[in-house]
């Protein structure tokens, strides 16, 4: 009886679409119980919970993605939507143009350079190194860069999300330890190093940090596409 229901539900994207939304709401609720605790990152909690369910129920990722693709698709319009805060806070961007552009170039070189250097050091194959190199850019862009370099886009997607979560978790303690109080600088750094996940974190901390994070994410997507060719 339950087996029949399982087969019935598996044929439509409804189960995993609804499942992802429910898990996300539960994860944000749990993360909200301890405000300011970056370790309880809702993205990380959701990924672990859903991955565990798929692993133990034997459902493969393609079947899950049939439903979850409707959420994944919104990454595109969400990137476009980052143009709105850019417009609303244009004067703030203008007055920070030089620091912003210098940090962009140095940050992008550091992100790709340190990743390639470390991955070579650990003896990863060239295909894995290429998959890791664009890890600081937003998922869709990183996957395109990775496949252009003969990397594995699926591995890139996973590493991109891991990078985002790491950045979102360490940014607040790291910046506090360095006594940095300028939220435009903090936001810009997290958006550059950990793309949209860093930006989601930045918006939850401070609106100005969120704005600069979104700008950094957009600009770094462009610069990384050029910078990777210096290292690979």
């Amino acid at each position, binding site marked *: 009886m339950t087996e029949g229901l399982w087969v019935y539900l598996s044929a439509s994207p409804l189960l995993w679409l609804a499942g992802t939304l429910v898990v996300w709401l539960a994860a944000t609720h749990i993360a909200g119980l301890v405000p300011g605790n970056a370790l309880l990152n809702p993205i990380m909690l959701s990924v672990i919970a859903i991955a565990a369910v798929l692993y133990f129920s034997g459902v493969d990722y393609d079947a899950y993605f049939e439903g979850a693709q409707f959420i994944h698709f919104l990454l595109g319009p969400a*990137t476009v939507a980052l*143009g709105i805060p850019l417009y609303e806070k244009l004067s703030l961007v203008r007055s920070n143009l030089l*620091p912003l552009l210098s940090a962009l170039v140095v940050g992008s070189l550091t992100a790709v350079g340190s990743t390639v250097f470390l991955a070579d050091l650990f003896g990863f194959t060239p295909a894995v190194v290429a998959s890791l190199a664009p890890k600081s850019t937003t998922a869709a862009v990183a996957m395109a860069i990775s496949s252009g370099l003969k990397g594995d886009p699926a591995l890139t997607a996973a590493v991109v999300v891991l990078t985002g979560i790491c950045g979102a978790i360490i940014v607040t303690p790291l910046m506090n330890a360095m006594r940095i109080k300028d939220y435009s600088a903090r936001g810009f750094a997290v958006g550059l190093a950990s793309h949209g996940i860093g930006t989601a974190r930045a918006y939850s901390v401070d609106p100005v940090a969120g704005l600069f994070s979104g700008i950094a994410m957009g600009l770094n997507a462009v610069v990384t596409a050029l910078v990777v060719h210096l290292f690979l």
Partner: protein
Amino acid sequence: MLAGITVLLVFQLIGEVTAYYLGCFVPGPVIGMAMVAAVLILAEGSKALAPAHRQTLETSRAILANLGILFVPAGVGIIQHLDLIRDRGLALLAIVLVSTAITLTATVWVFILVKRLTGGYAND
């Protein structure tokens, strides 16, 4: 709401078409982001576009407030690489952690030092 999501999708579409014809590595949505900002700046004060303008702002705020969930489907893709994680997971995690910490530090200090040199903190 409907006008807002339409505006975002149309700008993404224009961005994708532009990216295709330019043959460059700038992704379509990023071009769309720059274009939507440019059009909002140019359309400021236009009465005819005011309702679409307002709806776009509302829809964008709703999407950006829930940005995190959009990364969950890609993140779950990690289960396709369980063998690599089992064998080299710690090395991968070390690379990601160290490189992210270095990148955050380098970026934030360059931003602050250049801002200081150009007198950006003069009013503080």
